[in-house]
């Protein structure tokens, strides 16, 4: 057990060093992610100014801007960056051979690396996010009960794991298709729209929102913010956590199945 843990701690450390080289890349990404906030602030200001109501789908103007600040924060903390390209490259370029020879589980190996990327990203992101937060300080409202904070952390951990599982599953298609970028982009656009990145999902017409709730995408981001904003009560909250867990299990099993099939084909080709 001790050996097992120390093995993955080692991988984690390697991941830290490897990713630190790309810290500028992270920094640029975060910079570009923050820029649209500027447009969103003015766009929603105009919508609220010309609308007949002071709230839209339960969001005040300040609440709306805070929503987008929260998407920026949680995406910086949780969403996989380039993990899919690296996994696909492992498969395509044969780096996987060396990894298969070692007594490690590839998924666990990748997940450990994902965690270390997250740590580096969070550290790199911290300072710029504080600047953004200072700039938009009038919109920020952090007064929540400790229960809400605890539940938010739980939802966020689930969202991170789900995000990784989806990315990992998609990348495994590299066993069959040479260029996974089309697939990656399709999944990315679904995530972009249905994770709540573009706008809070609960301002959509009720029937669409009901359907979207059953897809995995809201549980990568929107769910976390909804929990934080106390948008869900008892049963609804429980339902949300259950759906999130179900999707994690689903992608876990699906990726396992893909891996088993893919690895047969892979070794057969590699001789």
């Amino acid at each position, binding site marked *: 057990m001790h050996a097992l843990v120390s093995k993955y701690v080692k991988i984690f450390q390697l991941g830290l060093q490897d990713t630190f080289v790309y810290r500028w890349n992270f920094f640029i990404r975060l910079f570009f992610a923050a820029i649209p906030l500027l*447009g969103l602030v003015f766009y929603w200001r105009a919508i609220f100014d010309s609308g007949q109501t002071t709230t839209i789908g339960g969001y005040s103007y300040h609440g709306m801007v805070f929503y987008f600040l929260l998407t920026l924060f949680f995406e910086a903390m949780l969403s996989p960056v380039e993990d899919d390209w690296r996994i696909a490259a492992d498969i395509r370029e044969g780096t996987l051979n060396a990894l298969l020879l070692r007594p490690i589980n590839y998924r666990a190996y990748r997940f450990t690396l994902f965690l270390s990327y997250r740590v580096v990203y969070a550290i790199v992101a911290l300072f710029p996010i504080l600047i953004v937060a200072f700039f938009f300080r009038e919109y920020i409202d952090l007064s929540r009960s400790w229960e809400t904070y605890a539940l938010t952390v739980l939802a966020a951990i689930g969202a991170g794991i789900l995000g990784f599982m989806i990315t990992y599953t998609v990348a495994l298609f590299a066993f069959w298709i040479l260029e996974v970028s089309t697939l990656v982009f399709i999944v990315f656009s679904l995530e972009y729209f249905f994770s709540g990145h573009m706008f809070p999902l609960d301002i959509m017409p009720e029937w669409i929102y009901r359907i979207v709730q059953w897809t995995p995408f809201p549980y990568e981001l929107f769910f976390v913010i909804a929990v934080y904003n106390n948008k869900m009560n008892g049963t609804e909250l429980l339902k949300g956590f259950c759906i999130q867990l179900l999707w994690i299990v689903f992608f876990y099993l699906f990726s396992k199945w893909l891996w088993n099939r893919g690895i047969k084909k892979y070794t057969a080709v590699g001789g």
Partner: protein
Amino acid sequence: MKRYIEVYKIMLRNSLIREMNFAVNFWLWLLTEFLWFMAQVGLVHVVFSFTDAIYGWNKWHVVVLIGTHQLTSQLFTAFFFMNLANLSELIRTGKLDFLLLQPVNSQFIVSSKQFGFDNLINALVGVVFIIFGCYKLALVPSIGQVFAFCVTVIFSVVIHYAFSFSLVSISFWFVRAQGMIYGYYSIMNMARYPDVVWARAHIALRAVLSIVIPVIVVANVPTRTLLGLTTGPSLLWSTGCLIGAAIGILIFSNRFWKFALRHYTSAS
């Protein structure tokens, strides 16, 4: 000039052969981009369920704006995008050397080797929405307006191209361009807002977003030209910004490319 047309014809043919080899990929991309656009239209629908108009822009004005953004960005994507996305790969693998040896302008060959036919279809989807928006507005633009629209669309495509080309040229220093491509999208997404929403912004910010990173004018000027919308900043001023920005950024992108190339040769 004639030689460039010849070269471009050959590259077009190669692109077509390439697309036909990856038919599934072609349809998937087509579908994805189409859904992406429909999502934008969906968002407009959601927004306008809360208000009738944003400072004089009603739902169908904004639909025409989104259609125009679709048209210009998809035209840009068709002609240039794949090439720009591949640039960092060319640098990393050293394949760029091969392109630089060709007896044509290096920026030309790097920017236009591949053509995306699926994007041309999606550009037409944009046109359909522009026409539909005009129909809903009960508006028939004059020949002059349509002509001015086409001219301003060309300037917009130039801006899309020059702006993203400058961004990906940075990959000579930072090897991964994926972040840059992401930057292009996330900045240009702001072009879909009616220019009136920026009225509250600080004058300096408005100036920067009209001239240096011209997201305020890039889709708004063609739209307003076509619709004859007079609300918001003076159309003459905005058009001036559009043309000035297009020329300015194009020249900058070329200078920056040459500067970056010098860095490249000295690095290897």
